[in-house]
């Protein structure tokens, strides 16, 4: 049975035609997780009973003719989304014992759509990392080569879809955490415009950058997922009050006259030349589809990593102050006083990368340093955002590599934070500006997948998905999966 190679769209059709039931489909994927996830470590928690109960309910809805596009479809959630009555760890020892008392809005929306949750996916601790090696639950392996990292922070989300252990998953992207792992694992990932998807119940890292999005085999599946995820939520004060279009509506539009901007800064010295060749070939494919290519400049993009490593740690140090061992999460043994309770609970509960970022943030926000760091970074952020605004006066989308190289070996960058941070050199600017971005499989370099990054204008998700879908109608990179998981 090769049910797992089907896209979410195909599975939806099969469920409606009753050629397979949701319970059968769910069992199929649960069996695959059981068989293959020992090597991958992409799941923190498999919610078997919960999934089968949801699948049974979905089958009843389908029988009554009340099925929506996602009814009965198994998906998996990054373990950053709170799930009522189910462990929500955020990849941290701090929350290893945390059973969430409520659902994230994203989870609630998938429940309403009748989707089935297979489990909770491994991730870098508190989404801080680009390799999934900072997880308390151990690293995730890249399905294309298990010696390599899957990228991060949504490493479990990407690896599980790449190995077809789940038809689709959710991720979050603060500096590239959806797009970079999607690129390294050869699948499709979308980070929507800041505020498009509710952050309620999504454990906060850097609140002005965090955004949730889908990780799927195809752009069409990403559109179906985003249809369910997007929308205003009164529970998230930064959620945008804007109608949600049907993201599948524009997929079939042709690309004649599409103006693609190629920023010269994204094709410079740091880019692996084999990755560059794949990206250039993808751009050539777009030219064949009728697109025009325009050279553009994003002159301040070199400052995006420096600005990010002020803004993100500063916001993280504030957000993570809630983990104090008092109300939920890890508490140290036998604290002698309140100070000891705070300090030891946090020091024993957080891993080294999280502590580094909290400390950088605490320093940047401390008395006397605010102007030099946080205020400066917010100004640089404005310059970066203005670069994009100027570019979008001339072009419809911007393209380039998602990541400067293919997946690297486990351990290769874990002792060098700076080398790790530079994995996100092409993705971070998008978060600083709040723009939507995608990564789409575009080929291979050294037998590992390469992702093409497509950046859109604010709320341009429909256009992005259209541009990605048309590429996928004319290439088959997105259909490839590693042989060992077939």
């Amino acid at each position, binding site marked *: 049975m090769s049910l797992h190679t089907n896209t979410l769209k195909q599975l939806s059709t099969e469920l409606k035609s009753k050629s397979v039931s949701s319970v059968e489909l769910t069992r199929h994927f649960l069996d695959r997780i059981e068989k293959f996830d020992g090597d991958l470590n992409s799941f923190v928690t498999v919610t078997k009973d919960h999934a089968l109960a949801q699948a049974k309910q979905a089958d009843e809805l389908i029988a009554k003719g009340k099925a929506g596009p996602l009814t009965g479809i198994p998906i998996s959630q990054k373990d950053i989304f709170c799930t009522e009555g189910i462990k929500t760890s955020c990849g941290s020892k701090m929350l290893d014992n945390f059973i969430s008392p409520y659902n994230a809005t994203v989870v609630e929306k998938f429940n309403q759509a009748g989707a089935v949750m297979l489990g909770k996916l491994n991730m870098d601790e508190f989404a801080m990392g680009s390799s999934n090696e900072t997880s308390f639950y151990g690293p995730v392996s890249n399905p294309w080569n298990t010696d390599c990292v899957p990228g991060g922070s949504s490493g479990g989300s990407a690896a599980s879809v790449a190995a077809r252990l789940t038809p689709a998953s959710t991720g979050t992207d603060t500096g590239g955490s959806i797009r970079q792992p999607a690129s390294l694992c050869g699948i499709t990932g979308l980070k929507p415009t800041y505020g498009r998807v509710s952050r309620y119940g999504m454990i906060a890292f850097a609140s002005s950058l965090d955004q949730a999005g889908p990780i799927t085999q195809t752009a069409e599946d990403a559109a179906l997922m985003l249809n369910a995820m997007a929308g205003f939520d009164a529970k998230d004060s930064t959620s945008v009050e804007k109608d949600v279009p049907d993201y599948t509506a524009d997929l079939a539009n042709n690309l004649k006259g599409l103006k693609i901007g190629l920023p010269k800064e994204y094709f410079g010295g740091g880019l692996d030349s084999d990755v560059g060749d794949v990206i250039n070939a993808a751009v050539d494919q777009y030219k064949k589809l009728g697109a025009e290519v325009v050279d553009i400049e994003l002159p301040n993009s070199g400052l995006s990593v*420096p600005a990010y490593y002020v803004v993100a740690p500063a916001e993280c140090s504030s957000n993570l102050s809630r983990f104090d061992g008092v109300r939920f999460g890890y508490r140290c043994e036998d604290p002698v006083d309140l100070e000891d309770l705070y300090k030891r609970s946090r020091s024993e509960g957080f891993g080294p990368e999280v502590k580094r970022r909290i400390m950088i943030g605490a320093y940047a926000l401390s008395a006397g340093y605010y102007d030099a760091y946080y205020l400066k970074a917010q100004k640089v*952020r404005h310059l970066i955002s203005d670069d994009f605004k100027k570019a979008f006066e001339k072009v419809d989308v911007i393209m380039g590599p998602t990541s400067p190289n293919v997946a690297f070996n486990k351990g290769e960058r874990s002792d060098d934070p700076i080398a790790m941070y530079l994995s996100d050199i092409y993705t971070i600017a998008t978060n600083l500006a709040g723009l939507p971005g995608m990564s789409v499989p575009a080929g291979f370099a050294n037998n590992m997948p390469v992702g093409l990054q497509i950046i859109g204008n604010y709320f341009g998700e429909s256009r992005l998905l259209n541009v990605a879908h048309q590429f996928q109608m004319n290439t088959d990179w997105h259909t490839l999966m590693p042989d060992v998981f077939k």
Partner: protein
Amino acid sequence: MSLGSEEIKKIANLARLQIEESDIPGYAKNLSNILDLVEQMDSVNTDEVTPMAHPLDAVQRLRADEVTEQDQREHFQQHAPKVEDGLYLVPKVIE
């Protein structure tokens, strides 16, 4: 920027973290390197630039001052490390 061990201890205290003495040199090195990276921002003059508060220039949405939440104290406290009579317990603060 190079941070010394006293500064690491001060920052750790601000962040309510306890760093083992043996780990301080590692933190000093890594945090100094990160600050060096961050200071690349100084290559651009931003005197005339306004800081960006929100990518979409949105302002904080307000709502009517009405009670919208129900009391769920027991539900929320069921996973707390230590509670008694509806209160979270911590080591004694006042003698």
